[in-house]
């Protein structure tokens, strides 16, 4: 490794296609000559190939506009603010128990707690045989209480005064239409504001399918290191060009040249992926 070696942040940016073409050319040029950086690049690619399948669903999802994202985030924040405490607690428990390890631990704790409780309270248990009934009676209000309590808390935070429980319930009911409005507006958003230009979605779907094919082939180790570097460099270039054109089209929807180049670059990306896939298929067929 020499002093001019690339740091991992730059390599990650290179793989993510975030560098401009000058930087991309510089990085790819350096990687061709530097074994240490080639190794770093390979390691970074391995990490990406581990992470990407996990995030595949998110990547394959259609990308909404920034405006829609803002709207979604605002709505989520509002929903979160208005959510009762017991719902938050329940969500936390549900999410926590989804992990097998935590579920195991919780089960063990539960079992131990049952036995420990019996151990510690053996004298009282001896005395009162009807305690389970009492316990059920006492737990009834405590389980019912959280239902009303968060409503009070949320209303207090909104209205700032003490209101009867009935009024609070009414407030809660009045909030319901507002939530529905928010949700409706979210569902309406894609209808009123399309995230894609005409035909763009088809390109993106095709690219997504081809990328998956090529990534599978990449992970099978068919592609040689030099080819992988060339492929990553070309992809970075194409992605950079697409990003620039998309920004330009968003900035100025009447710029037909940018649209034209955007479509041509999408097509180029498809051709690029196709050629790599075609080669890998050929090599596999010859094995």
């Amino acid at each position, binding site marked *: 490794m020499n002093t001019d070696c690339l740091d991992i942040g730059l390599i990650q940016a290179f793989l993510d296609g975030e560098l401009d*073409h000058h930087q991309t*050319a510089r990085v790819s040029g350096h990687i061709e000559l530097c074994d240490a950086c080639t190794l770093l690049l390979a390691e970074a690619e*391995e990490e990406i*190939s581990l992470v990407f399948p996990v995030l595949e669903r998110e990547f394959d999802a259609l990308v909404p506009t920034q405006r829609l994202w803002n709207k979604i985030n605002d709505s989520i924040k509002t929903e979160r603010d208005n959510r009762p405490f017991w719902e938050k607690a329940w969500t936390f428990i549900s999410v926590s128990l989804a992990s*097998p390890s935590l*579920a*195991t631990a919780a*089960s*063990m704790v*539960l*079992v131990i707690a*049952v036995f420990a409780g*019996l*151990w510690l309270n*053996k004298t009282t*248990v*001896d005395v009162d045989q009807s305690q*389970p009934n009492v316990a059920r009676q006492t737990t009834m209000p405590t389980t019912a209480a959280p239902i009303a309590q968060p409503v009070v808390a949320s209303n207090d935070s909104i209205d700032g005064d003490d209101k009867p429980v009935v009024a609070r319930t009414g407030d809660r009911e009045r909030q319901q239409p507002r939530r529905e409005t928010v949700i409706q507006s979210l569902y309406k958003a894609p209808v009123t504001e399309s995230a894609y230009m005409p035909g763009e979605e088809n390109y993106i779907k095709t690219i997504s399918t081809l990328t998956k094919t090529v990534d599978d082939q990449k*992970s*099978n*180790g*068919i*592609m*040689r*290191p*030099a*080819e992988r570097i*060339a*492929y990553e*460099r*070309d992809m970075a*270039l*194409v992605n950079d*060009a697409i990003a*620039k*054109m998309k920004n*330009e089209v968003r*900035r*100025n929807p*009447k*710029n*037909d*040249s*940018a649209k*034209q*180049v955007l479509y*041509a*670059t999408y097509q*180029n990306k498809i*051709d*690029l992926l196709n*050629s*790599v896939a*075609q*080669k890998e298929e*050929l*090599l596999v*067929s*010859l*094995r």
Partner: protein
Amino acid sequence: MADFVPNLMKQIVGKFPSGILVFIILTSLSAIAVAQFRLPINDRFESPVPPQVFWGRDTTEKSIKVDNSIILELCVAQGSVRVNGWNRSEVRVFVEDGNKFSFNIRDKDTRSGHPNWVNVVGYAGTKDKKGPTGDCISGNEIEIDIPVNATIKLKGHDINTTIDSIRKAEVKTGGGDISLRNIKGDISAFAGQGDIFIESSTGPIAIESTTGNIVVFDVGPGELGDPFKARTNSGTISLQSVQHRQVDVGSTSGSVSYSGSIRNGGRYNLFTVNGSIRMAIPPDSACKLSATFGSGRFISELAFDLETENNVGGPIKTIAGKYGKGGDAEVKLTASYGSISVRKL
């Protein structure tokens, strides 16, 4: 203390139905079992293993009488392949330092009765002499003579291919250069990692290289409307004297150069993401030209009648106009990050 354990058990059994306890214990055990589960180690990071290609040391020559319009199919695992057209109704295959092979006749011509579809099938290796897998042949030098009116369908792993004077060529290689000359009917070539050279050929042409350069000289359509398509990811494309009227050329990170005439009614589409486009056309050319470019600029040595210029700003500019008068050919040049120049030929 001695009575404690029995009492405790009695209490447990009395207070909790045994079903609940069993349920809790089973749930705990299941959760522990699930927690122990691990995904199998993925073998996708297995280091790339180059295909094991060995050949024997046999030198073999075989020939077969065939129909003039034969289709010859073969797969070559390794070696240098030369295919020549000749004026004989015969196919001859010569393999130097390679594995043995045979002709597999797939079909015969109903009129002449001679084979018109033949596969060259390589023998698999023996215990002593290993051969390539599948039906591929392999050798140091592979020479094939086929009728000039023949079609060859060749696919190979890592081979240098030269084909001369036949009717149709369909070549797909994973690596190595492809050189095609005097192909009179149809060319389809794909080089995974290698350059493609095409010379003095006619007919529809479709060539593609993943990381190689493409050089084309003196080609034309066999029939009106035959297309010419060339594409490479990271190589340059150089076209000289391309007579096709439909020219579609693209490179991702290489430059594109075109030198030759612009034919009436033609459609020329030259595209590159990160490279320049250079055109050299005769001074009397007549066509409509649209140049779209990013960080570079547009230079024209010929008198260019500018019609529209996109001045909206941003990273892309478009210039449209005409060369000469009366030409209805359309030339579309796009270089996302490069310059575009049009020179006199």
